């Protein structure tokens, strides 16, 4: 239950090919995150799977059955939209029961399922409110509730947290992860926030302009990005990419080194530079180091509090074991 296979799936809007032919396997029970910059086709891909858009070519099969031509309701999938898409005129109870009602389920069974879902999501005391009377996080949970009751083969989430504020986002992220632990249903989750991708996914699919750049577990992507695009996309702050003689020293066209893999010392080290803006978060400090001759700016993370300020000279030393090497096409060597 919950295996999804895309083979040669293509989507064109008019003349524009938004998704070139694409193959992807999603295993039962996996938590797959589609990640990529804005406009790269994440939502489109999700909607193709949901059946809200027709594929221009290729096949989608769900649990081995060809679902390419099926209408959305017949695919056995549930979707949680970015805007939640709750029915504002129905109570929470009715919202959650709506798919059951549409399926013609009898009233008692509807109620039973709604109560169960509400319990899982801590919504029991809000069942008679309308969406308008709920906070953002609660709305989010109602949307999830509506998806859960149908016991779908897979959940589809389209940036479900992007409308929440930072604090709530962290909480909801956790709740969705816990839900996945509990239900073990396949989940496909779209985001452009790489922290979400890293913390939630079993498997991350990095998309760029409709093409898959890399598929793998978060740590695989962190440790071994297949190309500079993935390298730049995964990890925060961004990996420093260096070209030129210093890269050539490592036998590569480009080398990448993450801010957390660079040591900082006031007097000695490999590369010399000048401190620009520094961001003190208390727990960590990020320095922007200029004039290293490597790249316009190098970002460096120093644990805790460090006594360096704007204009100071520093020396940087990369952890040689953590250097990523790329050829002139940006492909990992």
């Amino acid at each position, binding site marked *: 239950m919950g295996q999804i296979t895309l083979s040669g799936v293509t989507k064109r809007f008019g003349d524009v090919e938004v998704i070139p032919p694409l193959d992807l396997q999603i295993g039962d029970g996996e938590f797959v995150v589609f990640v990529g910059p804005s406009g790269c086709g994440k939502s489109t891909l999700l909607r193709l799977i949901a059946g*809200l*858009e*027709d594929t221009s070519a290729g096949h989608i099969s769900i649990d081995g059955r060809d679902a390419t031509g099926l*209408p959305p309701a017949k695919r056995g999938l549930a979707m949680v939209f970015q805007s939640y898409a709750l029915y504002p005129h129905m109570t929470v109870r009715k919202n959650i029961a709506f798919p059951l009602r549409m399926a013609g389920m009898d009233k008692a069974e509807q109620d039973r399922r709604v109560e169960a879902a509400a319990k899982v999501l801590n919504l029991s005391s809000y069942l008679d409110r309308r969406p308008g009377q709920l906070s953002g996080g609660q709305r989010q949970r109602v949307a999830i509730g509506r998806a859960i009751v149908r016991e779908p083969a897979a959940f589809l989430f389209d940036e479900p947290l992007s409308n929440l504020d930072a604090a709530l986002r962290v909480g909801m992220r956790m709740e969705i992860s816990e839900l996945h632990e509990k239900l073990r249903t396949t989940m496909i989750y779209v985001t452009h926030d790489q922290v979400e991708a890293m913390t939630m996914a079993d498997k991350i699919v990095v998309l760029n302009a409709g093409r898959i750049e890399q598929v793998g577990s978060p740590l695989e992507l962190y440790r071994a990005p297949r190309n500079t695009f993935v390298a730049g996309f995964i990890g925060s702050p961004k990996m420093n990419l260096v070209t030129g003689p210093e890269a050539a020293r490592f036998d590569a066209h480009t080398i990448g080194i993450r801010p957390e893999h660079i040591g900082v010392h006031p007097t000695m080290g490999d590369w010399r530079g000048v401190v620009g803006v520094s961001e003190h978060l208390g727990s960590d400090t990020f320095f922007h180091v200029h004039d290293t001759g490597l790249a316009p700016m190098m970002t460096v993370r120093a644990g805790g509090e460090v006594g360096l300020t704007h204009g100071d000279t520093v020396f940087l030393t990369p952890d040689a074991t953590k250097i990523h090497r790329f050829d002139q096409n940006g492909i990992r060597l």
Partner: protein
Amino acid sequence: MSTQASRSAARLMLSPAVLLLLVWMIVPLALTLWFSVQRYNLLTPDRSGFVWFANYAAFVTSPAFWLAILNTLLLVGGVLLITVTGGILIALLIDQPLWGQGVVRILVISPFFIMPPVAALIWKNMFFNPSNGLFAEALRGIGLAPFDFLGQAPLASIIVIVAWQWLPFATLILLTALQSLDSERLEAAEMDGANPWNRFRFIMLPHLARAITVVVLIQTIFLLGILVEILVTTNGGPGSESTTLTFLVYKEAILDSDVGTAAAGGVVAVILANIVAIFLMRAIGKNLDA
């Protein structure tokens, strides 16, 4: 939302409205076109036959034709001018904090509910009448001679009546638009040193552009067809001073019972109305794009 299935459903669901309107347009239009090349007078049914474009020629060369076009433009333009400026001013006024806002709004909106014959009758008899009308009384009250509004300024009087009927509509739409103006934008302008006039001129007025477009568009459609108000008050006169294109067609159709010429006039009116409409869309339609 664009699966093949939903697109065909959309076509299906659109079709009743489109078909009905098509029939509603085509059938009378076809008959009208047919009549417009016939000699067809209701009162002389025995004199009939195909006359080519004689009816068009008769209509276009009738002495009142050009005046009617001018009057139509004046009527539409005048009413639009009054309702839009008046609507903006009133909207600005009742958007301010004041006591009894609800009642004020109800009073302002009221003329919109009045059926045209009643509106025309009220104005004609109780206000414009040079002997018994309130305006005459008022003029007499301040020692002036009563003015014969419908005789001396027939078109202007009709414009007043029609503008009175449409002022609430313009006011309401403009008021809603005004209230949708993000207050931060006004505050920003205030921080930028804009005085109240400049805030109106540079912030509010451009914000209202779209609403004004809609008001102009909808009102034009209704105003081009104004008939009852003229019929009740001046009957197009004196002379042809207040004859509009629609009224001219009415005169042919009803007074002369000349269906042929009226049909020709109708076709001419439709063509002219569409020219006005196209002109409107071109000139201001870009405001309508979302």
